[in-house]
């Protein structure tokens, strides 16, 4: 006899009590892995660019390689950050309403700043 209280179908799906399985965990690791080379590239750029004036910075942001890598760094960074903040909020905020409100606010802010940054980078790159 099956000693597990879960049904075979439930076990095969492997989604657990949160109904999303290991998706959150996996995406957090995937974004972490992607950020390793991106962050190293960005740190080197940031330090070598710190004396640059307005025109130099715009030329750099608008160059094809920097444009793509900057968008990736900011968007994946925001995604990784909002996943991490969600865990922190779930750990320390015990009031259900406040917890939900904070998680939703974090996700909204991430999407807002992500889209605004992408639009700004593209405006610079495409000369808007």
């Amino acid at each position: 006899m099956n000693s597990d209280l879960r049904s075979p179908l439930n076990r095969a799906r492997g989604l657990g009590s949160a109904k999303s399985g290991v998706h959150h965990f996996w995406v957090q690791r995937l974004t972490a892995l992607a950020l390793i080379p991106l962050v190293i590239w960005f740190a080197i750029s940031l330090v070598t660019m710190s004396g640059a004036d307005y025109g130099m910075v715009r030329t750099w942001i608008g160059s094809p390689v920097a444009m793509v890598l900057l968008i990736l760094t900011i968007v994946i960074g925001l995604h990784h950050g909002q996943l991490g903040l969600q865990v922190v909020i779930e750990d320390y905020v015990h009031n259900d309403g406040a917890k939900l409100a904070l998680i939703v606010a974090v996700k909204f802010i991430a999407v807002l700043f992500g889209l605004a940054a992408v639009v700004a980078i593209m405006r610079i790159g495409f000369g808007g």
Partner: protein
Amino acid sequence: MSVANRPVHRPLSPHLQVYRPQLTSMLSILHRATGIALSVGVLYLAVWVMCASAGPETYAKFQGFNSSIVGRFVLGGWLFCMFFHLFNGIRHLFWDAGYGFEIKDAYRSGWLVVVASLVVTAISWIVGLRLI
């Protein structure tokens, strides 16, 4: 109130404050703290490209803050948070893959992360400040 819903006043299990600080737990806490700081840091990054796209006056204001004393310390703090979170994050990925769980290894990788993040932060901060 039913018996089941009555709040229980049992003693809590030993919590963080009763333990002597160890390197491993301190780095774990620092990983979270730097992660929270970097979540704000990435918003700052987004503001940077928005200022660059907005025009020279807006960008001059942004750069004015960056080259101020406070701005220079923000840059240093930002670099430390990023390098610490990067190196300790790689340590976490090794754990996720199942390596480095022996206590000796956890301490060795921990000290490696501390030294590497301090050295790389110092070098990049000094280079960055010279260029501002």
